[in-house]
């Protein structure tokens, strides 16, 4: 069997790079988690776990990140949620529901639980104290 031709391989590389670049801005734990609020939802046993990290300053969300151990749809929805949360006041963030996330990202019905998990992780982060160093 032949290996992928050069043009096909380049397209794949560009697609994956584009996805990974967006992911790096929105996903993964913060480099220095001190001061961030961290919330967890789901479990490995349920084969779905999503963590939310929030940098809250003066009652508003300066930055947000998610960690995702879930499907590709969950990853997309988490990226959307990060972009939505940037600059939002806490009160607005508290009003974001899984249903709204699912509708905004056109999640298929089978993935709606992922959106609920994102909501749960966000609420847990909003309720958490800032992470301490040491």
């Amino acid at each position, binding site marked *: *069997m*032949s*290996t*992928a*031709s050069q043009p*096909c391989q380049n397209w*794949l590389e560009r697609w*994956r790079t584009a996805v*990974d670049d967006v*992911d*790096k801005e929105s*996903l*993964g*734990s913060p480099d220095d988690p001190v001061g961030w609020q961290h919330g*967890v939802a789901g479990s*490995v*046993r349920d*084969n*779905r*776990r*999503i*963590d939310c990290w929030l940098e809250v300053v003066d009652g508003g969300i300066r930055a947000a990140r*998610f*960690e*995702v*151990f*879930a*499907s*590709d749809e969950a*990853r997309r929805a988490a990226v959307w949620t990060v972009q939505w949360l940037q600059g939002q006041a806490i009160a607005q963030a508290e009003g974001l529901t899984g249903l709204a996330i699912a509708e905004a990202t056109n999640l298929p019905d089978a993935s709606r639980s992922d959106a609920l998990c994102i909501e749960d992780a966000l609420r847990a982060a909003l309720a958490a104290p800032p992470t301490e160093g040491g």
Partner: protein
Amino acid sequence: MPAMTPYFDYAATTPLDPRVEAAMGRVSSLGGDFANPSSDHPAGRLAATAVERASEQVRRCINAVDYRVTWTSGATESNNLAILGHVTAQLRRGRERRRLLVAATEHAAVLAAAQAADALGFSLEQLPVEADGRLAPATLDAALDDDVALVSVGHVNNETGVVQPLASLAPLIQAAGALFHIDAAQGAGRLPLDASTLGADLVSLSAHKFYGPKGIGALVHHANVRLAPLLHGGGQQQGLRPGTLPVASIVGLGEALALADDEVERERQVSLRDALRDRLAALGGVVVNGAVDGSPHVLNVAFAGVHGDALRSRLADLNVSFGSACSGRAGASHVLRAMARPDALADAAVRFSLGRFTTPADIDFIVERVASDVAALRAISPVWREIRAGRKLSDVYGVTTLPELA
């Protein structure tokens, strides 16, 4: 058609060997043995001779000298004929034995056929396997009694490449007076198989697993074994499996099996497989699903901290398997569950299966791709973060023990 990435799914099927294709072509053409081997005229008798030659090739390759070869559409049919054909024959002859034993990791074709025997008054017991996928002789021994009609064990597991200790299991089965069926679909043509020395009563084969044509298989059975047909119609194959024999396909199976097993090629594949395993292991958090001395052509690994759905999505353009092609089911496989892999880890398993045309450059390609995609998924995974921070895999996945990492 877009160019494809290297093929790493030889356990699902193999390309047709050009020599086999040529042999089949010679049979099919006007000057060849294309006639119906059941026809009582010179052309039919030539075709029958070609069929008998293929039968001899099969008998010779698996040392089944006094055995009969019944041609089928593939190993699925062979497995059904072995199990349900024997069960039905038992009932007709008023035999008392009513239990069937199979390893819990057997192919769906074996499990489903054995479960179907339930409607005929037979009970199925699935025997647990060890964490490395092997059926321990002690486990089999504890289950055997004089009510066991048949034991079915796969030579090589299609998902993990685990090679069952047939030489240790066979004497126990014979001592209990049960029939011994070997599903050799994945092992024939890849590893030596000696039906006579093992005392196997029935052996299932499938041509497309060893560079033969698709749609043809065989059930090789000892002359003493009684089987009832599953299909009814013409009198071909002594009525055991009626239907016009596909001479070209049968010739193809015989040729392919005769060409397939090659010690030098086996060692080459072992070397490639081990290189693949070692290079993937360098990623860390890689669980090997199977034994170190498994079949040369299969490597099944799970990537800790990676979500199965996301992994399948990233690797969708690769010719690998995420579970048996035959099962067609999503989620953790019954084979990995039987090996006590937690579902979330089993869901992140990938089967790489090598073959005659796999090259070192293919290994380079697949390692680079998989490493890159696994790294990307781990970079955003809270589960991998915790594992990297020192949390034990067994704690993360909620199990008592996990096999060693590669």
